[in-house]
């Protein structure tokens, strides 16, 4: 598990006594940009691997490589208005995971809009400002359909995994899922892990190596 950021250590990184004297409740609650940058630079190898996994999780349907999604999340986070947008009691991997999810949601919306515009257009000449063509957008949208179909196919003979997969997609609780498909807590956790691991394997090609 990733530990929350050590506030005392981060405060000591802030240069100059003046800034420390000005430390307010707001500064206590949220990291300064410099503290956030330091925290990101100091991520442990295990936390880097967690971010790698999350990037793979969120990149499908965006048209972005997982590595690019992770890079973009960090760049945008550090560019934010005053950089004081990361709550100090939230671990950096969790915060960056949320940032990646938010970017991914936006990119999927963008891909969907490009596809819609292209379908409405007589000529297939639409190109997004980021250079994405309608073909790229269609491929991104189709990727989610393909992954979902592959998941259903993979677990066709695994009723517990299918129950977890469809149940979570319907925002059911663990108890509700176990009621639909009777299984013990241990079996539920094992099925949940199978779904997550398969989703990780199917989701993109991983970071460029």
């Amino acid at each position, binding site marked *: 598990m990733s530990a929350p950021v050590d506030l005392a250590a981060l405060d000591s990184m802030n240069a100059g006594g003046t800034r420390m004297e000005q430390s307010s409740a707001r500064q206590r609650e949220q990291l300064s940009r410099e503290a956030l940058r330091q925290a990101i630079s100091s991520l442990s190898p295990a936390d880097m691997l967690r971010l790698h*996994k999350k990037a793979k999780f969120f990149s499908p349907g965006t048209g972005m490589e997982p590595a690019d999604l992770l890079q973009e999340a960090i760049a945008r986070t550090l560019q934010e208005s005053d950089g004081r947008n990361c709550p100090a009691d939230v671990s950096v991997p969790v915060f960056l995971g949320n940032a990646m999810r938010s970017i991914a949601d936006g990119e999927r919306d963008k891909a969907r809009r490009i596809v819609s515009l292209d379908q409405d257009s007589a000529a297939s000449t639409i190109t997004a400002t980021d250079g994405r063509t309608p073909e790229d957008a269609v491929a991104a949208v189709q990727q*989610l359909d393909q992954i979902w179909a592959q998941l259903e196919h993979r677990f066709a003979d695994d009723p517990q995994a299918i129950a977890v997969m469809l149940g979570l997609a319907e925002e059911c609780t663990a108890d509700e899922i176990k009621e639909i498909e009777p299984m013990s807590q241990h079996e539920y956790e094992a099925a949940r892990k199978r779904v997550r691991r398969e989703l990780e394997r199917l989701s993109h090609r991983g970071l460029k190596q």
Partner: protein
Amino acid sequence: MNENRKNFERLTRALVDDIDRLSDIEVFQETKEDYRDVETVVAAAKASIEKGIIAAGKQRLQLARDGLRGVSTNMSFNVRSISSVVKKQLIDQFSNHDAQLKGRLTMAARNSSGGIDDIDSLLEDLYDLGLIDEEGNML
């Protein structure tokens, strides 16, 4: 929203928390199952992180440069748009009533490398004091 997209997003949202709950050992084990060479994956993730930090730094530097350029442009634009003839007339008019200013301008004239900047700087001061307008007219 497309049904598969909705399902996918809800599923990943639910399962991503499981990644945070994994112990460090479990994270390494799973990565080894997927890639065998864990160190290479760590290095790739680290490279992405560093690129993100560098990209943010470059963006902030560019914003700072744009800001400085904007300030500089705003400050010097009016002075540079004034013709040298008008500048000379203005300097003459003000320096005739100010011996100290006249002395500074004489020094500026002797120093060819810094003379123009010195005069422009004086005109900016006059503008800031409200003694001339944007076109160099005395107020």
